[in-house]
């Protein structure tokens, strides 16, 4: 069931809209929310679907509220998934999208409507406009993976060595990001870049509730007071402390001023997979495998 918790009620200064008219005269908040929820519940479909003006207005809302993470044109950004893909990780139907936008996705960087630092909260109508816009930029028919899924899986778990550091559906390593959902949230271009030039944009790790920027998969090398050296990935960090996982998958927590040395690098621990390490054909196969997993 859809919740009206975060959405702003429609603008009483404007002409009533038939689908929202019920609550203009309500004065009791609880009653309003009840009626509102009921009206949304009946809304299995975007009431503005196919309206090009709604899509245009939705683009303004998208630019103000969503583009910060999802990029201009909804093609994805550093932390927001590519929304031009027809299949959405958290549901692809109109009510799914409404719910995702209005309530956010717990456990991810996707906040509830109106709770971001960027942009302003949207009304119900404006959310539907954004959905109209997203529909207008969706690629018709998912670009079917042209690679060989089975061979991609073989490469992932074998010769390409991906599973040494990355996990898919509970199998693999812990040094790099879990890739189980990557195929459904990242554009193919992003995945290609991540393989060919992993240091170009480091993958993002933990997002804290009130913190603007997520921790990234930076490389770290420390030498403790007793001379022990650890190399690995930063899981989190503040000015005074470090939380890391080393290449042997051991967690370590340090106070920086007690370390003999502490060095961070934005050169990813992941090797850059050039043509020699992974041909274009093999690259396509690995991507096909990631897409097939993401679609599950």
């Amino acid at each position, binding site marked *: 069931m859809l919740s009206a918790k975060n959405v702003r009620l429609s603008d009483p200064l404007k002409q009533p809209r038939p689908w929202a008219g019920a609550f203009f005269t309500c004065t009791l908040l609880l009653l309003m929310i009840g009626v509102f929820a009921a009206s949304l519940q009946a809304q299995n479909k975007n009431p503005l679907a196919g309206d090009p003006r709604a899509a245009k207005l939705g683009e*303004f809302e998208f630019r103000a509220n969503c583009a910060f993470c999802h990029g201009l044109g909804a093609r994805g950004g550093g932390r927001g998934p590519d929304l031009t893909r027809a299949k959405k990780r958290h549901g692809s139907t109109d009510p799914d999208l409404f719910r995702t936008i209005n309530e956010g996705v717990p456990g991810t960087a996707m906040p509830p409507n109106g709770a971001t630092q960027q942009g302003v909260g949207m009304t119900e109508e404006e959310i539907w406009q954004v959905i109209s816009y997203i529909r207008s930029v969706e690629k018709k028919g998912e670009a079917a993976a042209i690679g060989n899924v089975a061979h991609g899986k073989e490469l992932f778990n074998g010769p390409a060595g991906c599973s040494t550091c990355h996990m898919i559906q509970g199998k693999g390593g812990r040094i790099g990001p879990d890739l189980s959902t990557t195929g459904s949230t990242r554009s193919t271009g992003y995945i290609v870049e991540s393989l060919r030039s992993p240091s170009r944009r480091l993958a993002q790790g933990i997002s804290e509730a009130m913190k603007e920027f997520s921790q990234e998969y930076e490389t770290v090398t420390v030498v403790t007071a007793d001379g022990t050296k650890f190399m690995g990935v930063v899981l989190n960090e503040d000015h005074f402390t470090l939380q890391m996982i080393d290449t042997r998958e051991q967690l370590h927590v340090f106070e920086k001023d007690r370390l003999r040395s502490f060095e961070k690098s934005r050169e990813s621990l992941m090797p850059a997979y050039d043509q020699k390490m992974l041909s274009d054909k093999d690259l396509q196969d690995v991507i096909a495998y990631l897409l097939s997993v993401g679609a599950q």
Partner: protein
Amino acid sequence: MKTGMQLAMALLSLGGLASNARAQVTPQRLLDSGKEPQNWLMYSGDYAGHRFSALDQINASNAAMLVPKWAYQTMAGGKFETTPLVVDGILYATGQDDRAFALDARSGRPIWQYQRALAADIRPCCGRVNRGMAILGDKVFLGTLDAHIIALDAKTGSVVWDATAVDYRNGYSITLAPLVIKNLVLIGVSGGEYGIRGFIDAYDAATGARKWRFYTIPGPGEAGHETWEGDSWKIGGAPAWITGTYDPATNTTFWTTGNPSPSNRGEGRAGDNLYSNSLLALDPDTGKLKWYFQFSKHDEHDYDATQVPVMIDQGDQHLIVQANRNGFFYLIDRTNGKIVFASPFAKVTWSDSKDASGAPVARKDASPTPEGNRVCPGAAGATNWMSPTYDPQTRLFYVTAREQCDVFSTAPQPYEAGHAFYGSAYFPNDDAEPFTGALRAIDPHTGKLKWEWKHLSPTWSGVLSTAGGLVFTGDAEGNFMALEAASGKALWHFQCGASVYSSPMSFAIDGKQYVAVAAGSALFAFSLP
């Protein structure tokens, strides 16, 4: 009989307490706030906007021993931006969703709690935040997200009066702490994201009757109106969403204003767009403009000037200091609004020249484009609303800085009342390096950097300086820390568990000094053990 006498004596001593410890906050006490450093009587601590505490019990020699004494949980989500007031042992503060509360400042135990019943369709831009209260007599005052100003009984939290500033449904809200001058309560509005027409108001503290309004966008026939194209003045923004300062010597109050709307599209509002992104000198009795200084003319990058205008004096020079969101540090003569100098305190690309007066001028090619144009500072600015501090002992100005460039894009957008009105989007540029922040200590008379404390990522914490030779600030990683004011050396830190989005303050009770800061859902108070 004995019991009766005891009761009478108890009542007598209570009466004594009431007249001494609980004396009313008068306009004179606000003017003389420096004489009672145990109290924090207004948003910035004093009328000059220094956010400096003359308390020195906590100092560089013992700061390492600081411990948390209490925490008060609002249990609300979202940014907790308040700066509390403390008057004679009682702490008054606001919280998310227009909460307000009074606490025993010694223990953090609540005395009363208030929360406004907000409509579902309010239009807060950037969180359901409130930055604090003002106090006079037996009332505390706050602005609300539905654009009212209300007075609460300081002893009970009951609403004494409730004045509507403007119809919130057109995009207005109030998030700042009011400023009391004499018997007037001054506020400004937020809403630069909605195409409002900004203003600053003064209300009678006793009754809530509005005494004057200064529109930050001049109407037809007024000077400056010609700086707006066509009817763009009606929806031109220029909100005033940070608390001003006051110079009693000249009876002038200084307020700052935000961006013209739509924020990232100049088409349709040709001209300088007065008084957006400006410093305003107003007569507090009448609201009449004495002079103005505009930092960013015809702004297209959301470079709000809404940073507390800090007053400093040197010899016979009476000045205003502002580290502006546009990346320049300005020194301005507060007797006439003339610029003394401007120099960058963060990376700047929007300007590469100055006019004859020394004011930075925008480059023609810095405007947002349909495809996006990378400009520094980014839309969040080189600093923002978080308070700076001026320490009269080190004679340094400390400000939170942000190093981030953004890609500014623009798109035509029709105005619709009460709907977001940006005409644009901005998003972090694709730089490989992460964005950072810093606390910068600047010599205000030269603009030169004395030292900086690097933040791993940009913070929204303000800064407090104290006579103990310390500056206090917080970071996005949740640390609240004490640094040596002269050098920037870290002396102490505490992990609050959430990013700090507030400006700290200090007070004393029973001769014991505390430092307080809001983070997450909690207000923390620290002291020596």
